[in-house]
């Protein structure tokens, strides 16, 4: 008996404990090795699949590395101008209140250029889900400083490290958002270990269930890595994130009403 036939005996429906969700398309991903976006996409796609809401869900992708998110998850998508995803989602949700509407935004998109749109969508309590991927840098444009860049962090536009006197302070926008009465569920998660991914998935499920119950806006920050922008290997990036980002961006749920 050859090894292949032996494997084929093992791979059968009875033994299947895990498979890629059908919602995750087979298009080749453009993300760099070690990037967190791929895992987050997978988790979102799995939850949409498990809740059986594929035909009721509209995603809004941002400008940034995840601009092409619509190539990977098999749902209807709108591609927003830089920072404006919450405005698109607001209209979409109000015009089709029975649908599940989410935005998927990076830290440059959400915390910098789109600061007004996210704050006001949160404050109005739009019945949407916001995924905020924070890797403390602008990835797509080549690793420039974001509002979320840590003090002392080297980026293309802070080549000597972020200096608060020159570049301003690091922004914890999730804490600001948790203060707004329109938000019902605000949590900060990560995706660097299987355990973290399982926790993230629970949070994503809860957020979409809040949409079902018309509870208002659910906001999930995911602290992630940018190996290319940070100029580190994927493994080093996870270590750097744990050492530098987790103490500042503390994981956990800020609000759950």
């Amino acid at each position, binding site marked *: 008996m050859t090894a292949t036939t032996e494997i084929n005996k093992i791979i059968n429906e009875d033994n299947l404990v895990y498979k890629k969700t059908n919602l995750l398309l087979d298009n080749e991903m453009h993300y760099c090795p070690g990037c967190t976006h791929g895992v987050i996409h997978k988790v979102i796609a799995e939850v949409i699949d498990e809740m059986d809401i594929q035909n009721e869900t509209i995603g809004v992708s941002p400008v940034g590395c995840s601009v092409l998110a619509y190539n990977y998850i098999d749902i209807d998508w709108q591609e*927003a101008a830089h920072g404006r995803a919450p405005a698109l989602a607001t209209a979409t949700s109000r015009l089709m209140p029975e649908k599940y509407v989410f935005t998927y935004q990076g830290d440059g998109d959400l915390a910098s250029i789109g600061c007004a749109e996210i704050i006001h969508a949160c404050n109005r309590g739009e019945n949407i889900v916001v995924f905020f991927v924070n890797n403390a840098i602008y990835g797509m444009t080549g690793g420039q400083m974001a509002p979320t860049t840590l003090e002392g962090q080297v980026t293309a536009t802070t080549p000597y490290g972020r200096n608060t006197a020159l570049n301003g302070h690091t922004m914890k926008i999730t804490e600001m958002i948790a203060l707004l009465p329109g938000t019902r569920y605000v949590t900060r998660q990560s995706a660097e270990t299987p355990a973290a991914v399982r926790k993230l998935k629970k949070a994503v499920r809860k957020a979409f269930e809040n949409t079902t119950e018309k509870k208002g806006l659910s906001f999930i920050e995911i602290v992630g890595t940018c190996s290319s922008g940070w100029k580190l290997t994927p493994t080093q990036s996870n270590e750097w994130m744990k050492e530098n980002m987790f103490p500042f961006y503390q994981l956990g749920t800020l609000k759950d009403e």
Partner: protein
Amino acid sequence: MGDVRLMKGNEVIAEAAIRCGCDGYFGYPITPQSEVMETLMARQPWEQTGMVVLQAESEVAAINMVYGGASCGKKIMTSSSSPGISLKQEGITYLAGAELPALVVNVVRAGPGLGTIQPAQSDYFQSVKGGGHGDYKLIVLAPASVQEMNDFVGLGFELAFKYRNPALILSDGAIGQMMEKVELSDYKPRWTDEEIQEISGSWATTGKKSDRERNISTSLDLDSARQEQFNHKLQAKYRAMEENEVRFEKINCDDAEYLFIAYGSSARISQKAVELGREKGIKIGLIRPITLFPYPTKAIQEMLGQVKGILSVEMSAGQMVEDVRLAVNGKVPVEHFGRYGGIIPTPEEVLEALEQKIIGK
């Protein structure tokens, strides 16, 4: 005779939106057009037709709400005045790039910058030559009366959906603020989900059904060869608009030896100047472009055998006159007369300008 009222132009925009089955209005206050959203909020159309009305946090947010709503195959509009329309330009080019139908109303005030809240026509270039980045065109309708404020809301949506392209009503502070008799349109129901499916099912993001591919509302394509092809497609669409959608009015043109060309408020004033001129025995006519894009180039060219000179009348420093000169191509003298900064010219001034700049030369 239908439902005839005495109403402000801005109020009529709101009323016409409700009556034509508009699904959503997203706006931000700015003088001199704030009555549009105020009227909608007072009318509470969500109780009657289900229309969504939302005051956005900025013009930028409002136009992006339009993008989101339009992506769902709904009839969506916004309105603003010049400085606010400048802020909307990013969203407008994205709408054009994603081939989304939507209606934008600009009740123009004088600029540049904050300028003043008085009427002007100094946003012509912004409206017909682009405004935002990239090679795109809007369908631009120029109302000259409160009645046309009513009529062009329905027409704007009709053309926007026909071409999957944003349409713009280019009004001004005079027409927005003045009260006139208007016959309001009959109520048309909003489209049902089934109708939206039939009209826009091939592209609207209403939730992916198992019998179709996912719909994506985007203006992005990183492949230059495909991007060029897409631009060819857009240009073909604009040529089709030029072929099929030119609208204009000719007044006293049959025997005209001189011609005014003017749109909107300036056309109303120029029409009076035609009367004054004819009382003095001067054979003047008026061409009033109703669509500014596509522009009535051929209608102007057809007059070139009989007219001795043309005066383009605008409340600007001379913008539309460039399109008149392109149409005329040097065959007869073309001059511009304009008041600006919020000043509305009198018919006497307009006639005097014709006499001095064209007839007297």
